[in-house]
């Protein structure tokens, strides 16, 4: 079954990507921007989902989100590097490396201890960033406009070009992740989630799985942070604050761990609800957002991804 499915997956993804790129030409500019931002948040959410498959939840993904954002921002302002694709890629690698360095420490903990320790990391980074006046302190700083292969697009098309880059890069990352999830180490993560002790007795290392997953999650988070920073054109320590981390956790819960595209859909949904409630209920937007969160947790406890799965299962049955 596997060979055919994978070919199929690649074909489906490329079809979806081209479709989204074409749609981007038709929808208004603001929606292009919101989708780009949702992709950035979705990438971080994808990282949390990678962890969730191994039974871990991080409350501190703002840590890697911030590192990625600041990496892209500082390379842009200090080193004059403005190529968006390069910035995204370098942030991905660098944050992944940072993740690999701290992962062995975090991977020794489970459940709430893991969550709180990751939260502590993000808040320590927040505390450091607001104190460094050279990079704007609590005000953050502005990123230079990005270029693509040395060309700076005119301001009308800048959003669209970044959108295309984000779709392509994220598309291929999503495909790779799907392969990873269905590979042996990816499936061991699910087994760790069910029974860690048994996995160890069978000769696999739960510790290694956690390190690997955290490193992947860090890389994804860093890339999300860089994308968010480049899209907004501004970076501040709020990137690493616990409320930002909370949003990522919510996106992952809303999406569930069953489907990769569901994560981006969840991020888009959250982004739309937030921006429209802010627009039409400026005094009570938090209330609307809170209600949305509560209702979606009550009524879709296993996430949007569960709909996708049901849908495809039904499709298979009817065949």
């Amino acid at each position, binding site marked *: 079954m596997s060979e055919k499915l994978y070919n199929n997956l690649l074909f489906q993804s490329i079809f979806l990507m081209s479709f989204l790129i074409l749609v981007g030409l038709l929808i208004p500019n603001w929606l292009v921007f919101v989708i780009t*931002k949702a992709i950035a948040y979705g990438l971080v959410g994808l990282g949390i989902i990678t962890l969730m498959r191994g039974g871990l939840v991080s409350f501190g993904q703002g840590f890697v989100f911030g590192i990625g954002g600041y990496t892209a921002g500082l390379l842009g302002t200090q080193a004059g590097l403005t190529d968006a694709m390069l910035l995204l890629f370098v942030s991905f690698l660098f944050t992944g490396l940072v993740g690999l360095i701290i992962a062995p420490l975090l991977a020794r903990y489970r459940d709430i201890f893991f969550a709180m320790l990751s939260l502590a990391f993000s808040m320590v980074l927040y505390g450091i960033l607001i104190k460094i006046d050279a990079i704007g302190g609590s005000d953050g700083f502005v990123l230079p406009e990005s270029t693509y292969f040395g060309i700076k697009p005119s301001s009308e098309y800048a959003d669209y070009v970044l959108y295309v880059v984000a779709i392509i890069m994220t598309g291929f990352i999503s495909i790779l992740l799907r392969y990873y999830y269905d590979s042996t180490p990816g499936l061991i993560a699910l087994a760790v989630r069910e029974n860690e002790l048994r996995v160890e007795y069978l000769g696999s290392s739960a510790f290694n799985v956690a390190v690997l997953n955290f490193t992947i999650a860090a890389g994804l988070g860093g890339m999300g942070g860089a994308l968010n920073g480049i899209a907004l054109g501004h970076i501040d320590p709020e990137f690493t604050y616990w409320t930002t981390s909370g949003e990522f956790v919510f996106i992952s819960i809303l999406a569930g761990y069953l489907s990769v595209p569901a994560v981006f859909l969840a991020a888009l949904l959250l982004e739309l609800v937030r921006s429209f409630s*802010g*627009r039409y209920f400026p005094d009570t937007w938090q209330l609307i957002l809170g209600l949305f969160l509560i209702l979606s947790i009550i009524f879709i406890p296993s996430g949007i991804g569960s709909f996708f799965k049901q849908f495809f299962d039904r499709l298979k049955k009817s065949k």
Partner: protein
Amino acid sequence: MNFFRQCLILTSSFLISLLTYVGISNADGHKGFKLGVVTFLSGPAAEPFGVPAWNGGKLFIKLLNEGKAPAPYNKIGFGGMKITAIPIDESGGATKQVQEFRNLVQRDKVDAVLGYVSSGDCMAIPSVADELKALTVLYDCGTPRVFEDASYKYVFRTAAHAAMDNIAIAKYLMEKGHDISSIAGINQNYAWGKDSWKDFSVSVKKLSPSSEIKNELFPKIFSGQYGTEISALMNSKAKVVHSSLWGGDLQSFILQAKPRGLFKRTQVVFSAGDHVMPGLGNKYPEGVILGARGQYGMMAPDTALNKWFYKSYMDEYGVFPAQPPYRMVQGLMGLKMAIEKAMEKNGGKEPNKDEIAAAFKGLEFDSPGGLVQMKLGDGHQAIQPHAIGTTAKDKDGNITVTDIVRYKASCVNPPNGIKAVDWINAGFPGADC
């Protein structure tokens, strides 16, 4: 459960498509002037600052649309175009504000954005504004760096920056013969607090070189608890304690420091101290030296325009207007004058943003707080006259401001092209007092 779930999906997808539709349909084919207004509507800065500012703005926009404001603001709306305001909450940090700004410009297609109390937001928005070619009026934030570190085409600030507040207080202390041999400060740990303290302490040093800094405290913004800081200030025995705290932080500090006798033992100065007066009423301590970031509220000048605004606000909301509503109205007035000047120039047609930006540069207009001149930052940054006073009880036992000294705009603001901090360090060259 399944039924509920389906209902939820149906309703939410319906709501989202409806909102998207409204968002898109709102975007095109409008008449009049669409103005995005950004100010704190939630969080600790809302009650003492953001909400009264928006109250003042709302009232003034209503009066403008009815054509009820006095000359020279008696034309309906902005040059005959009725104003539709879209209020947006400023809380959530600079990154969120950049996104809200983009939504306003790209989705709602506003003609201009007026807003921003927080210095962090004012640092983040201008570059995006220029990139999107969106006319933007910063109405309140204090940091001098906005137009000192960069220049923007479509961004204007219609109120003086924070340097004036602290220079004037230092001068006031000197002129009134207060003992400034030792000073201490409690300011929030971010751009506004740090800049304020630097401007104040350096100004004092310039005016009285022998004075000594006893204590510099920088609590986190919105921390709300100042027990340890108050002890440290009491122990330092500094003659003057300076603070640029504002909003809920200032309220908490006053309520916590008053029973411990800080205001009796030391001379306390608040660089932005008046806007919590409507909320605190007679709990506000006596003998405090304070500025209002301009001639606002109890320190406003005795002009017809001010009397009209003060009375309109008082009649509508039952409290006197402190600095926030004054500043937002000042921003609206500047925008109105720029638009009408641009219309005059192009023969009465609806001006485009380039024409408005050209007219805004170097504009001068009367506001309830006095004459505003867009003189700094090559015509993008305002200066305005200032006033400092001391609180006292009147004969009915109500808190009021007495001993008011007024300062000319050119006396407490640097000339064009010189950074505020350099101007203070050089000993205020060319100050016209």
